[in-house]
């Protein structure tokens, strides 16, 4: 179990390093002269040279890379090229908003998707099964921001149940906070809910055909205990997808946040991208990938616990 854990951890670190390196060189190759974008119309050759010296882009790329990676290893993401504030602090300010929306979405997907999936899997060809199937086909394909717009139009503009835009800090009002992230979270989660439900339905149906389930039934176990056995055996595939969803939801959040005017990393990312603020973009990428690696690591641990055979491999 220990070597299994270490291996997964190592693989995560390698992935993180690979993505960081790849993104660094991609960004620098894509934006050869960042001072142009940063200064905009005020760009004179003198101003450009001064800025290049200030942000260090006048040095060789490999030196910049070593500098940046060294800083990363010390937990220092450097300063923004636009406002010269420490990037770590700026991200730390915005990330909780994005993460709270994504986390609520994941919880919604896991709980609602799980319940719907189990019901549909145990009762194939009933109306609930068909509803899950139809929902998963359409809702999964529709982008989150499209769903978000429909929800805003219906529940915020027409029915006025929720605030259309804006964010309330949980420290100010927990109720207000919940209200402000409910619609965004639902908009993000709808596709994930039906996807999880559909996947779990198939896994449950497959598990239900296994010999050992018949043998468990032959022992006289009540249906709910059989369902727990089915769930435990069907869970790994669904959990893997849930972890993948985390990445997809982070991407989706960047757009959905802007519809609801949530002060998350979405607007910050877009701003950094339009300005050519490379260290800011890199910082956001690295921090999100760190979260992805953590989620995947937790998933692996969970899978090892659920499926005794995975530990051996």
């Amino acid at each position, binding site marked *: 179990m220990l070597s299994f854990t270490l291996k997964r951890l190592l693989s995560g670190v390698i992935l993180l390093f690979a993505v960081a390196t790849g993104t660094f060189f991609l960004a620098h190759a894509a934006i050869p002269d960042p001072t142009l974008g940063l200064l905009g119309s005020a760009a004179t050759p003198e101003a450009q040279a001064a800025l290049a010296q200030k942000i260090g882009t006048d040095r060789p790329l490999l030196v910049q890379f070593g500098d940046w990676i060294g800083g990363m290893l010390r937990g220092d993401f450097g300063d923004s090229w636009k406002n010269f504030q420490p990037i770590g602090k700026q991200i730390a300010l915005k990330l909780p908003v994005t993460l709270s929306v994504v986390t609520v979405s994941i919880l919604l997907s896991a709980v609602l998707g799980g319940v719907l999936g189990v019901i549909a899997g145990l009762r194939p060809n009933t109306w609930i099964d068909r509803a899950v199937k139809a929902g998963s086909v359409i809702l999964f394909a529709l982008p989150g921001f499209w769903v978000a717009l429909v929800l805003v139009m219906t529940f915020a503009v027409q029915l006025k149940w929720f605030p259309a835009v804006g964010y309330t800090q949980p420290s100010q009002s927990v109720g207000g906070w919940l209200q402000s992230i409910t619609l965004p979270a639902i908009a993000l989660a709808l*596709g994930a809910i039906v996807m999880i439900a559909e996947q779990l339905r198939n896994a449950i149906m497959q598990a239900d055909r296994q010999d050992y389930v018949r043998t468990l039934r032959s022992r006289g176990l009540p249906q709910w205990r059989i369902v727990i056995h089915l769930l435990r055996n069907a869970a790994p595939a669904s959990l893997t997808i849930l972890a993948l969803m985390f990445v997809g939801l982070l991407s989706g959040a960047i757009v959905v946040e802007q519809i609801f005017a949530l002060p998350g990393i979405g607007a910050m990312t*877009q701003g950094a991208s339009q300005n050519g603020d490379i260290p800011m973009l890199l910082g956001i990428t690295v921090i999100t990938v760190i979260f992805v690696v953590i989620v995947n690591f937790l998933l692996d641990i969970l899978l090892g616990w659920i499926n005794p055979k995975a530990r051996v491999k």
Partner: protein
Amino acid sequence: MTAPITDTVADAVDSRGGSRGSTFARFLRRPAGAITTAILLLIVLVAVFAPWLAPHDPNAVDLELTRALPSAEHPLGGDTTGRDVLSRIIWGTQITLWGALVAIVTSLVIGVPSGLAAGYYGGAVDRIGTWISDGLQAIPGMIILLIVAAAFRNDFTVLMITVGVFMAPGYFRLTRSTVMAVRGEAYVDAAKVAGLSDIRIMARHVIRAVIAPIVIQSALTAGMAMGMQAGLQFLGIGGGTTPGWGAAMNEGFRVMRTDPLLLLWPSLALGITIAALAIMGSTLADVISVKTPTLSRRERKRIARLNAEKKPAGATTTTTGSISVAAVDSAVRLENLRVNYETADGEVEVVHGITLDVSPGEVLGIVGESGSGKSQTVFSMLDLLPKSGYYTADAIWIGGEDVTTLSKRDRAQLLGHEIGYIPQEPMSNLDPSYTIGYQLTEPLRAVHGMSRAEARDRALAMLDRVGIVDPARVMKSYPHELSGGMAQRVLIAGAIAGRPSVLVADEPTTALDVTVQAEVLELLRELQQEYNMALIIVTHNFGVVADLCDRVVVMRSGSIVEIDDVEPIFANPHSDYTRELIAASLDGAESRAELDAGLASTAPAHPGAVHATNEEQHA
């Protein structure tokens, strides 16, 4: 979010598929298939003929048209800067389709060849490909898209190529898993032996298998690419001055309180297109997939009514078999049992009305070749037929009670209390996720109401009784840590832990090593006598019958051909089929004479020896 759908597609699709023409015809015959094809065809036509269809220049500004309501001249009105909405939507169709096409082609070009290589060659190629694919899926694509957008000054085509790169893992995984499945097929090996080059083999055999899944995946990918594209445009990226749907949605969003129609039109266009693609993909997957039909609930209710209906005695016309004791004195009694299965070609009856019974403490053998219906008979007794199967019977008596009148729930109450079941294949009949200890104690606590300590003691005692050497250690083990023989002993312990009065064993030794078989049979005999259970043992082997049984039922293709005590059957089988089965079981065994001699003296002299040699024939 490309990956999850892939597994569903791979699950749903039979890699061998049908011929393409007939598949497409079947697809079009479905309403969903025909309607979505028509919609998408219309959309493609609109895109192609946009320059002729659009009534106005999409970028022409007419200040009087600003936020104008729909009119004859401008059917969808004007937008916030005074441009014709309909024309912009029509031109947007072209942009949307072009973007999706770029993304799909990129995805295909990267994902399919790499997936082919990974699936076909395996090893290092597979590991590297999978690692890169997993890595791509761990990166939030939207952030990279924003970087690319910054770099290429919002160049639309470059953005869609990037979208394609992030969707490539979907194709990679799909192709890889399909190829891996095909790779194992005999005809691919045959082609290899025949000396065809790898490229030719892939082109001829493997590509054919992945085409259908790829088409389905492409429909889904197209939808997602359109969503991404509109999302980017909504953020003001990659739109430029071109009239994209996403850009129009952004504009409409900003004025949704005053001019909600401006948000409605582009949202409808995008929603309908993506939904049509998704439904098309799903319908196609549905057409191609091979499904095991299941009974509808209405059908199940009808069967339950049929079983509850009491038929007058003697109404049965075509049943095979016979009974030996009165129903109330029997341990199990089946009257005119029929088993049906729902298949793709309609219903098939696999057991054609059989009648038999077992007395308490009696050992009954049910013998027949595979496909004779003997296992179906057993599952009907237990009421554990697969979802696509059902039985009907005039009556099924268990413990002197007709159970066909019981509700499903009351019927299930008999399991564990009245009837114990020992399966055929030990390794697949233990839940791989739970320890042996949990699987043994759970029913004792949940069904028999024991405390944790009581259940543990009982489980340990049962394991000890079935000959497990170190019960405490086995309790902590997982199924994959046991040998087949040990697993079967565990299953026997589980079946008798609830002290049932009837034990049903479905070919309990077939999957075991020859040396273990005799031990397990001996154990069953001991336990049967110790607890005085009725034992119903299903087998294809007359050696087992000679070893254990008091009476024998011989089944052939769903009917009983002979039912009698063991000695007369061996001494003087009435049916040729029985004679053949006995001969097949004993064929070539030198102990034949021994057996005959043993039968002459009313009991097999060396059943163990006879049995061991016979089983070797079957191993």
